[in-house]
């Protein structure tokens, strides 16, 4: 489309500038925290770090690397993310698949039973008391089981399954294949895009979760890195990092350490993000088709 009106050209230039500002505003907080994490404490404390590190040092990271609780947190986060994602994917799939089949008797009733919980849920306190009375506190199950199925994700997956061609399955059924085998050896290989999308939705949720562990875990050795960071910013905990050095420098050390911990916590998300973001978008698209 050729459009050479002068006003439109001016608009396009302004538009590009606006977009550059959007990129800057979006990324600036990360640049800022990274700059703090590589700066000397005295410059940070004096309020002189805005874009680039001042008094460049990797000391903060070196100190943090020696911090046992940080590594425990990081390891916990990885374990919770893997276990949580596996449980979620399994549970979501075994519900979404049967519900995608028109031949399932009572499909409408089951669906209504499930969808109702999207709009009316128990609330914080009843959920907490349930987990507590089931004796799940201070176990990994407290943060992986109660959220095993996101009804919204399940509906997205079901929509995807409904869109798969029926012929392969029918042929397999005539060959005498059972549902389990059809699901594992025919449906799942065809569903890689939706499985990747769902895995990413769940994995990001698990990686970011701090409130569940905060509610249900009492022991420091079970804390994920997000909770470690939360306790740091809440000032609820003075880590060995700050108490081990000059007490005078407590606040500014905390600032650099907090920044470094934040950078290390988001780093995995930042690194995989360019490769995975298209799956998230795909997920939103499939979800929106339903609306």
């Amino acid at each position: 489309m050729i459009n050479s009106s002068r006003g439109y050209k001016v608009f396009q230039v302004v538009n590009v500038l606006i977009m550059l500002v959007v990129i800057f505003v979006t990324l600036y907080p990360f640049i800022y925290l990274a700059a703090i994490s590589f700066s000397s404490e005295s410059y940070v404390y004096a309020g002189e770090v805005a874009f680039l590190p001042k008094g460049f040092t990797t000391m903060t990271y070196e100190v943090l690397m020696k911090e046992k609780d940080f590594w425990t947190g990081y390891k916990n986060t990885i374990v919770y993310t893997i276990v949580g994602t596996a449980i979620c994917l399994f549970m979501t799939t075994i519900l979404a698949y049967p519900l995608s089949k028109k031949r399932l008797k009572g499909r409408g009733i089951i669906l209504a039973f499930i969808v109702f919980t999207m709009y009316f849920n128990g609330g914080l306190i009843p959920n907490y008391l349930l987990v507590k009375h089931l004796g799940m506190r201070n176990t990994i199950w407290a943060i992986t089981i109660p959220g095993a199925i996101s009804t919204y994700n399940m509906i997205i997956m079901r929509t995807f399954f409904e869109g798969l061609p029926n012929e392969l399955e029918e042929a397999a059924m005539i060959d005498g294949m059972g549902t389990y085998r059809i699901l594992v050896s025919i449906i799942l290989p065809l569903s890689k895009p939706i499985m990747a999308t769902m895995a990413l939705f769940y994995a990001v949720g698990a990686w970011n979760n701090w409130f569940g562990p905060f509610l249900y875990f009492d022991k420091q050795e079970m804390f994920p890195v997000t909770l470690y960071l939360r306790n740091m910013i809440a000032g609820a905990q003075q880590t060995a990092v700050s108490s081990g050095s000059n007490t005078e420098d407590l606040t500014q050390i905390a600032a650099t350490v907090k920044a470094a911990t934040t950078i290390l916590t988001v780093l995995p998300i930042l690194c995989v993000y360019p490769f995975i973001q298209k799956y998230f978008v795909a997920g939103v698209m499939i979800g929106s088709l339903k609306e």
Partner: protein
Amino acid sequence: MAINAGNINEVELKSSLRKETIKSIKKDWQLYSLLILPIIYYIIFKYGPLYGNIIAFRKYVPGGPVYGTEWVGFRYFEMFITDPTFWNVFKNNIILSVGSLIFGFPLPIIFALLLNELSNGLFKRVVQTTSYLPHFLSAVIVAEIIMEMLSPTSGVINMLIKTLGGEPIHFLASPEWFRPIYWISGIWQETGWGAIIYLAALSNISPELYEAAAIDGAGRWQQTVHITIPGIMPTIIILLILNIGGLMGVGFEKILLLYNPLTYSTADVISTYLYRMGLESNNFSYATAIGLFESIIGFTLVTVANYVSRKLTDTSLW
């Protein structure tokens, strides 16, 4: 079976239906068996807490039975209805969420329209991909970013204020600043993500419409007003209705991380208040009553929004 349908009475029809159902379950038992675990899960972890709301009407003693010790009727509801703190958090809740809607709703639309005008495809992709990055961050990360940037001593915002000759502001200790901080950080986090759905709607508008308009001599602005905006209007209306349905929801985790007793007067919302009442002060029944009240309002809003949506746009959630 060659039976005339008219001759079958209802009882026979029902029993033959039942037989057919049993037959189909027997034949397809593997398909049905997949449902067992998820249904048990829904009963325990979704309906369990729903039933757990019963302690809003019963006295719950920590360490006592799960569903409380005795009926107390509406005592806890009367308690919070006469509690001035409750009405203050209710007001804060509404202000924060209505503000988010007013400031946060139009921006993704404007952003999507501007993105759509970019002629360089690669640049467009880069902007878009960057813009929804903040959506994937943990509330803890967002809170830490906010705290660091707003720090009265080392924060970059106060650095700027000092350079311009102002006095540093202790943002997170000032009740009047809490709402802007909440809204602006929400815009930062969600504008790009919110634009995705509009971009999809934009890409569905037929290029022929634009070509026809261009032939008729319509400029870009006229095309935007007469083709683009009407083209995405159904999406805008549906999302607006959905947002109104979700109006009771606020960023509980973000507030919990950012507020403190100094800012309770503007920052405390229903969910944070019931969190403190229930989990910090052990008034479980009282907190549950507040939570149930909030869920009922939320559910009513969704139902009404859904009804309006169905009447206006033929689209509904159920």
